[in-house]
């Protein structure tokens, strides 16, 4: 099985090299998607052994991920694991995430911090938000997902084909994508992983962003429900 690690990165020159070296031990190819960085993220990642997809402009986390999916699709990868470049996700957990994919037990494996008692469990407000989105997923898609905002995921070829083509969120692909995939009958499992706190000032959920995130995500989940199955995804 040909495996790929996709690491979207935006101005992560201090951390990206370690993540690339860590991921390279567990997959065949590591791709860093440089989302318009203005620092030396690309060169640091290349020196560490990664393939670089340089986006000419910043298109957002979801758009960068989708570039990785499209690369995996056109280069015939059988399985893909995605992890953040800021060091929140431990590359040592990659085999555990890929295992259910390799064994054909699911199409998407989500790395959950809540299934690992040793992991960092986020701040109180963020945990409350996660519970709310878990509730939404259970209501609309009928499955319990403990960590709906996790960006540490692995997927098989069938799902790569699905997310590489068609609409995909530009900013935060979380609960809306999970609801969409569950409604399209993709099999999703959670795997306990270690997560570390985000580095200071790097969180996607600081300032007014949590408010925007919550409103946008609720709207996005509702739009998925209105569109129905196989209607081209979320945006």
């Amino acid at each position, binding site marked *: 099985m040909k495996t790929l690690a996709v690491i979207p990165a935006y101005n992560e020159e201090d951390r990206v090299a370690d993540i690339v070296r860590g991921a390279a031990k567990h997959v065949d190819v590591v791709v860093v*998607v440089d989302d318009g960085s203005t620092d030396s993220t690309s060169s640091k990642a290349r020196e560490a052994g990664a*393939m*670089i*997809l*340089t*986006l*000419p*402009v910043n*298109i*957002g986390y979801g*758009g960068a991920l*989708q*570039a990785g999916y*499209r*690369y995996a699709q*056109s280069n015939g990868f059988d399985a893909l694991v995605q992890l953040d470049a800021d060091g929140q996700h431990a590359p040592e957990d990659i085999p555990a995430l890929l295992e259910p994919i390799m064994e054909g037990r699911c199409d998407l494996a989500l790395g959950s911090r809540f299934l690992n008692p040793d992991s960092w469990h986020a701040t109180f407000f963020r945990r409350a938000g996660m519970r709310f989105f878990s509730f939404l997923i259970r209501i609309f898609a009928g499955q319990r997902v403990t960590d709906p905002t996790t960006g540490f995921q692995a997927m098989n070829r069938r799902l790569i084909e699905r997310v590489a083509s068609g*609409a995909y969120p*530009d900013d935060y692909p979380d609960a809306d994508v999970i609801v969409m995939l569950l409604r399209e009958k993709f099999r999703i499992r959670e795997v306990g992983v270690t997560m570390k706190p985000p580095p200071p000032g790097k969180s996607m959920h600081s300032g007014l962003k949590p408010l925007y995130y919550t409103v946008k995500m609720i709207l996005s989940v509702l739009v998925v429900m209105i569109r129905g199955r196989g209607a081209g995804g979320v*945006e």
Partner: protein
Amino acid sequence: MSPRQRIFALLVAILLLVVIVDLVRRRKLREEFSILWLAVGVGVAVLAAWYDLQVWLTRLIGAVSSSTTVFLFAFVFLALMNLHFSVRMSRMADQIKKLAQTIAIMETELKNKSGGDAAT
């Protein structure tokens, strides 16, 4: 409406039409967008020249004064234009995203290919 108001409104409409045509001529404004603005210019000119139409429209929508009618139509038009631009921007954002992804993938594949060729 006093003759002075009508002359002023007509002059504004004519100025708007001249500016739009000039922008299209200099390729600063695409024809597809100019149609909407030309319609506004013609609309203002017609309303300025044909006051009875303004009165009839005012009665039709139940407004008290004809100036309310003009402002209401102007507001509705601007809101629709904004919506139209939001739709266009959404489409363009999607197109830019796809282009950026395609360029990044093609660039990497090209580098790999040229690297492979150089090695052989």
